[in-house]
């Protein structure tokens, strides 16, 4: 798909970035202490913090990744929405108030509150850094994805731009500016997602989507054939001549020639019909043709529509509601698209072909995650599904950039209330994702080469203004989440490693400086990773980050709160086991072999999400090692009554006044 920047889109985008930088500059002047830099002085109002939680959490994975996955796989993409929100239940009921009670700047503080152990600090910091980096990759990929249609710049430019802006935000004002950027972006994302869903429902559904009359509906051509054998056939229409028959597994494609131009078709042997496809042809000399023409010619057809609704192949339904929209899709057939890569002589062609799928399949699990044994799902497929849902459930309450937000409010009660605001806000957004995804799936707006673009392209079908605003918000989404992650990572380096691991500790000013330098370093690494992982679905990548967080962090957090026999050695063993097991299983999984290493081999690990193995292993390591080391390692400080902890803590925080708050 060709993307051309519009001045309107560029203007809104620039205004957004300017506003974000102005917020950072404003708070930079008021951020002098470590408490101010890493925890916004603990003075953020719970309602602001709650929406900022939503801003942190509704990252590129949620907006771009989930909408893209629903647009591609239907209900299976919505499973991410369900799992992501369920994770907040763990955060609210189990983690929120105790985390606030025990910690100061980072989640390692809370882990270490009972033990004062250098080993816990070291492993907590390493875990924070690794999880943050894993979570940073999809955000940066999302940034690159957005900047192409918005500004007409290449992916790499988007990644570098986000990296530089975020480092500026974080290095100037830390958590205070990050919080207000998140608040702004979280609020805007919810409002404009509501607007987008309202527009989708108002336009309704049709079997010939024309993007509001702006782009004529494209009817994919069919050609009858006869005398079909393995390597030949006869085209009934004499205007076409047979070029080649190509095989890709069980699929058969045909190259036809007409008026000196080649085109590729998919054979349906049962009906002896060829159906038009979309192609990217890379010739031996390096020339790339899109549907037989150079990219500049823009020969792209509409992708994503319903071929029938309730059995009617020529129907338009307008002004729908949530129920009638879902029911109409369930009653019809959605044209999804498959992809095959085949050599054609010295050329190589990537063929995108239509896969009509019944609406009842689209609206139920199974198109991405195979769970039905009757349809060929294996035990590994089912474990994969369970593992993903476990990772999403357990991961939220263990994400460092979420956990540090508990330290930006005044009290445990405020932490709880801000979590509830977050759940309500995020829950509403996730309900909307289903309709944004299904809207993109059926509106003829999809880009077959990039499923992350589904939501912005859906917005574009309603006009350039809404597209510009949605894209700018999505870009701000990336900025905000990356800022939060970099604050978490820089806290791990400056507070957990440099300050508390060293015997003398750092002075306030030096700690802030160390945090800023760490932010620049982490930002640079994130830029490189964002470019390397360009082609992967951002929601899929976030699934990995959740698995690592759930495996490395959650068992320790839960057991420290609920099992009195937990020892510092047990916590260290749990974090180490969780990290090694989850990362090891990811690196040896089939998905990594296929999508990252690009090797054609059977991977030793059959599941692509490790949580089902690594989370129990991490729990087991904690229990076994704690029992073995019981008596050898006693807690240094009894489990923190609030006041004793608070007295020991308040240095610098009271002086820091980011904003007067009450709750």
């Amino acid at each position, binding site marked *: 798909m060709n993307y051309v920047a519009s001045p309107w889109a560029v203007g809104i985008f620039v205004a957004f970035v300017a506003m974000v930088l102005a917020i950072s500059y404003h708070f930079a002047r008021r951020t002098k202490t470590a408490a101010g830099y890493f925890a916004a002085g603990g003075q953020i109002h719970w309602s602001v913090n709650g929406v900022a939680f939503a801003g942190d959490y509704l990252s590129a994975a949620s907006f771009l990744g989930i909408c893209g996955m629903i647009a591609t796989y239907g209900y299976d993409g919505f499973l991410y929405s369900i799992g992501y929100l369920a994770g*907040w239940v763990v955060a609210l009921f189990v983690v929120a108030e105790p985390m606030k009670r025990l910690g100061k700047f980072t989640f390692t503080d809370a882990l270490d509150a009972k033990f004062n152990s250098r080993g816990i600090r070291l492993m907590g910091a390493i875990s924070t850094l690794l999880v943050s980096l894993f979570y940073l990759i999809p955000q940066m990929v999302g940034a690159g994805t957005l900047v192409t249609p918005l500004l007409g710049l290449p992916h790499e430019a988007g990644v570098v731009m986000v990296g530089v802006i975020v480092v500026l935000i974080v290095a100037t004002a830390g958590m205070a500016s990050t919080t207000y950027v998140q608040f702004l972006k979280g609020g805007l994302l919810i409002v404009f997602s509501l607007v987008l869903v309202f527009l989708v429902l108002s336009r309704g559904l049709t079997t010939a989507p024309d993007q509001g009359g702006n782009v004529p509906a494209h009817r994919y051509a069919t050609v009858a054939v006869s005398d079909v054998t393995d390597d030949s056939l006869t085209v009934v229409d004499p205007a076409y001549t047979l070029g080649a028959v190509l095989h890709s597994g069980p699929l058969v494609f045909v190259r036809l020639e007409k008026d000196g131009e080649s085109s590729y078709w998919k054979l349906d042997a049962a009906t002896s019909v060829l159906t038009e496809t979309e192609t990217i042809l890379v010739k031996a000399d390096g020339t790339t043709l899109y549907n037989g023409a150079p990219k500049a010619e823009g020969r792209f057809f509409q992708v994503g529509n319903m071929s029938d609704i309730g059995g009617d192949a020529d129907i338009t339904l307008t002004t729908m509601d949530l129920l009638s929209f879902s029911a109409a899709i369930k009653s019809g057939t959605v044209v999804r698209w498959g992809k095959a890569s085949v050599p054609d002589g010295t050329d190589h062609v990537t063929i995108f072909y239509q896969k009509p799928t019944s609406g009842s399949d689209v609206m139920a699990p199974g198109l991405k995650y195979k769970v039905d044994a009757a349809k060929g799902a294996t035990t590994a497929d089912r474990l994969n599904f369970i593992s993903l849902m476990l990772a999403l459930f357990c991961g939220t309450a263990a994400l460092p950039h979420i956990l540090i937000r508990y330290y930006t409010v005044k009290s445990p009660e405020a932490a709880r209330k801000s979590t509830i605001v977050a759940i309500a806000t995020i829950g509403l957004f996730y309900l909307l994702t289903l309709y944004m995804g299904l809207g993109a799936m059926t509106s003829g707006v999809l880009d077959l080469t990039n499923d992350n673009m589904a939501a912005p392209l859906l917005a574009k079908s309603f006009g350039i203004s809404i597209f510009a605003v949605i894209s700018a918000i999505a870009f701000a989404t990336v900025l905000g989440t990356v800022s939060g992650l970099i604050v978490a990572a820089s806290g791990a380096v400056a507070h957990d490693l440099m300050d508390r691991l060293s015997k003398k*500790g750092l002075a306030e000013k030096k700690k802030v400086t160390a945090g800023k330098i760490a932010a620049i370093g982490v930002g640079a690494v994130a830029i490189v990773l964002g470019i390397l992982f360009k082609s992967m679905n951002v929601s899929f990548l976030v699934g990995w980050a959740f698995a690592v967080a759930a495996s490395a962090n959650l068992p320790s957090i839960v057991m420290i709160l609920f099992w009195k026999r937990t020892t510092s050695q047990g916590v260290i063993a749990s974090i180490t086991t969780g990290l090694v097991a989850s990362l090891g299983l990811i690196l040896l999984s089939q998905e990594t072999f296929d999508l990252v290493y690009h090797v054609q081999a059977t991977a030793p690990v059959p599941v692509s999400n490790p949580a089902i193995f690594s989370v129990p292993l991490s729990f087991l390591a904690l229990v076994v090692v704690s029992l073995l080391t019981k008596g050898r390692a006693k807690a240094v400080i009894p489990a923190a009554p609030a006041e004793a902890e608070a007295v020991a803590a308040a240095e610098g925080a009271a002086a820091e006044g980011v904003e007067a708050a009450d709750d």
Partner: protein
Amino acid sequence: MSHGPATEWKEDGASAYKTRLGVIMFLVYAAVYAAFILIGVFAPSWMRADVGSLNVAIVYGFGLIVLAVVLAFVYNHLCTLAERRAGKKEEIL
């Protein structure tokens, strides 16, 4: 360098009650969530069963999101009541 809380707050007399309540509500939600996964894995055809014009998958999925929000508000209400009760008790003492 201390690693205690960054701000100061009053002692929380309702802490034990809130922890117990949180665990109970977590277990309730976890059970409903686990049932969703198990149905998906062991009886996927149930997910396709009609519920009005929708199906079990859509209704259950939406239900999980709405249930989380409802439980969150109930939890906050009960915690706030407990905190008020604990506050009054302290005043009397």
